[in-house]
């Protein structure tokens, strides 16, 4: 369907282009001249329509599913409204000028060097708007990038370490026993947060998957082993570069779950409907991408994000993952390797 629309648009564009070119190119004056105004005008209208109609085709922001995705999306829409209105306004004036003022015998041009009053108006109004836009967004930015770290938020949150390397995400969770210790001593959670989740022998290690819990904050201690990578969770609106030599703290709090336990594995691509039943939904297959160029397999550093409905579900997964990891004898039956091989 998409291909059909695109093919149609391409053909229409080419036909229109030829329609403009031949008369206007061959007859530089007279009726042909208006076609230039049409060319610019129709191009500008099409560009406005593309942004207006793209959401209808599903070519738009992946729906945001975290507590701060609303802030980010709101700012996006505010800017879209302001720039959209500006673009429409400028395009109207621009196209009008091209229609109204092609060269005419006997009509002298307006001999004017400008208008200082007008200049001041169209400098002051955008200036104020832009300044308000700049100041107004600072709280959202600081909320996303500089989370408050105190005993309360640390105790209630999960923590994970994510290490990027060419070309995978190495993920390390504290074990269930460690989480238990945080419940009994909230200061321990904050200490671990400040000490960048120092490695423990009983940590649960995974590759290319991240697990979180609906309604609970997840702090990510982000590192890299080799080059700069960047952790991108589109639906969570999280992006943070991983810088060699530094551990950077990022966080998100999902507002919806996307995974369901089936036997001993967890499957994504599901959501709870209004009645509380799990239904399949491809929009709920959430992924991890790398968004800082890192070499040959930069476009293949794909991971999966599992958001559990409840903390109990998450801890059940964590225990199973830990158990799978501690196999000391060769498995007698085919078993998935370290980490929950969920679908």
């Amino acid at each position: 369907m998409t291909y059909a629309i695109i093919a149609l648009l391409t053909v229409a564009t080419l036909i229109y282009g030829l329609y403009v070119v031949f008369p206007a190119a061959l007859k530089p004056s007279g009726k042909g001249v208006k076609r230039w105004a049409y060319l610019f005008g129709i191009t500008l209208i099409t560009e406005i329509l593309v942004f207006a109609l793209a959401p209808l085709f599903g070519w738009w922001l992946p729906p945001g599913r975290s507590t701060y995705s609303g802030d980010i999306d709101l700012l996006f829409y505010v800017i879209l409204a302001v720039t959209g209105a500006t673009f429409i306004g400028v395009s109207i004036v621009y196209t009008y000028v091209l229609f109204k003022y092609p060269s005419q015998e006997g009509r002298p041009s307006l001999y004017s060097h400008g208008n200082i009053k007008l200049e001041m108006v169209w400098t002051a109004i955008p200036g104020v708007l832009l300044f308000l836009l700049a100041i107004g967004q600072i709280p959202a930015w600081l909320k996303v990038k500089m989370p408050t770290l105190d005993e309360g938020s640390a105790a209630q949150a999960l923590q994970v370490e994510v290490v990027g390397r060419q070309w995978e995400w190495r993920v390390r969770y504290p074990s269930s026993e460690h989480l238990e210790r945080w419940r009994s001593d909230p200061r321990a959670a904050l200490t671990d947060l400040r000490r960048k989740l120092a490695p423990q022998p009983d940590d649960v290690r995974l590759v290319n998957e991240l697990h979180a819990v609906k309604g609970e904050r997840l702090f990510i201690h982000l590192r890299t082993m080799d080059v700069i990578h960047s952790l991108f969770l589109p639906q969570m609106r999280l992006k943070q570069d991983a810088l060699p030599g530094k551990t950077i703290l990022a966080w998100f709090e999902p507002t919806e779950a996307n995974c369901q336990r089936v036997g001993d594995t967890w499957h994504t691509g599901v959501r709870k409907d209004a009645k509380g039943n799990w239904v399949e939904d491809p929009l709920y297959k959430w992924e991890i991408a790398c968004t800082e160029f890192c070499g040959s397999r930069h476009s293949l550093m794909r991971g999966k994000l599992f958001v559990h409905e409840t903390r109990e579900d998450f801890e059940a997964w964590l225990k199973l993952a830990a158990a799978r990891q501690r196999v000391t004898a060769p498995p007698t039956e085919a078993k998935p390797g370290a980490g929950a091989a969920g679908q």
Partner: protein
Amino acid sequence: MGQWVVNMSENLTHAAEHGHHEELSFLQKYVFSRDHKIIGIQFLFTGLLMLLLGGGLALFFRIQLGWPGAEIPIIGKWLWDGPAGRVMPPDFYNMLFTMHASVMIFFVIIPLLTGAFGNFLIPLMIGAKDMAFPTLNMLSYWFMWPALIVILISFFVDGGAAASGWTAYPTIASVTMPSGSGSLRAPSQPGSGIGQVLWLLSVIFVGVSSMMGSVNYITTIINMRAVGMTMFRMPMTVWGMFITAILQAFALPVLTVALFLQLFDKTIGTTFFLPPSGLSFGNWTTGPGGGQPLLWQHLFWFYSHPAVYIMILPAMGMVSDILVTFARKPLFGYKPMVLAIAGIAGLGFIVWGHHMFQSGMDPRLGTGFMVATIMIALPSAVKTFNWLGTLWGGNITFSTSMLNALAFVSMFVVGGLSGIFMAATPVDVFIHDTYYIVAHIHYVLFMSTMFGIFAGVTHWFPKMFGRMMNERVGKIHFVITFIAANCTFYPMHILGVGGTPRRYFEPTAFDYLQHLQGINTFISISAFVMGFAQLLFLGNMFYSLFWGEKATRNPWRANTLEWTAPSPPGHGNFDVAPVVLRGPYEYSVPDMDTDYLPQTAEVPAGVSVPAHAH
């Protein structure tokens, strides 16, 4: 072209007879020339040649994006006939986008705008005989050649040309692994070995060339203006070039230093960009470092942000002059336009951190950069409104150069407005390193600057070569390019809003991007149409050089000084030293027979004209 050669030698002989110069050899006249016009034309041809290379590289990787994993016809057989089939390997793709950007930025746009147009137009527009330092000028062109040769050689070395993006971030670009055999290899990827070293050397040479040029332009504009040519009677083209030269002079040294630091990291074992903890690549570890990767980003972007203004301000100046000429109206708000250029340049020095919002830099620093970046939209908006004001009430002729200049204005609005999204740090969290950025870049660089270059070449071709370019072919080229380029770059905004990351060899690996793949194919097809349409422009130029209609001195009936000189001007430029009486934008002065009034022309009785451009 033949007539041009005859004109040039006649003029040079004429000058020799008056005892000004001894007879110059062929090499001195046309190869190692110290005449700004020849040097400008040298930059023009070299730049256009590199445009073919840079554009070709882009079309090449668009094949992979439009048809992922497809066998590449013809070239695939030469390059990769092996077990993997004739499919493009990811490392080759990475090299392609790196070299596309590097060639376009360092070898096409900057040399064309500053080297070609700056050189050719500045002395002519201010009424000077030549630049302040002709020998330095000649050197600035010839320093491009080592840069060119080195960058071309880099395609053929072990590991291939640089592949870490034109941004060359450590540590993917900067770490090298001394190998037993003595050749330079990188643990992160093949292109970061000798290819990256050659890239660094090449860009250092480009920087030296640009710094030479900028010093020349600033001195010439300040010191060598004709009698009566005050700063506020200069055309906007010269203002654009002047402020661009200041940007280059102050920003380039920082880039040059950064390039040397990375060069030393790669070749003599320094650790400017290696963190103290060291790094491990697979089985191999670097030793401990003493620096940090973020340092490169600061140094690099301190230049590269002003660089993007270097890549648009000259075009803005030229567009202003072309719009005025074909609207037959004075420029709306001369002084505000000059202030706006200065404002863009000044603010341009304090916004570099907006390329680093997500980099791990302190977010509070990001806030500072964010405010400055959002404010930079203001002078750009003022310029756009003033261009509209210039057109309003005019008598517009839709010549080829005017069409290209009009395209600049409308498309710059798109590019400028899209910039506001990424200036907003929370939104940047989502769109950083996605195709939204790529769309913005190409709207300001191709849809604005490149159309400005098409306009400038068409407009000043008669002055450069004494012949006119073909209007019909010019218009056909314009229409196809305008439509195809919009079809190529506008959908990239949509890809970006959908979250498509940049620099991705494989666009199909992610579920959340599957539904956007058709757009990639559409973009690739449009890009090929756009690319091939440029052959019309180059063909038009080449044909017109030899067989174009002969040009008069002032085919566009324009006011500025270059149109009082012969087409093409001889050595020394002007028949008599110009005396400037007014600003450059006195078009359609009331009570006059003609609708233009050159800067040097006496005013007829009974007509009043302001002495200075407002």
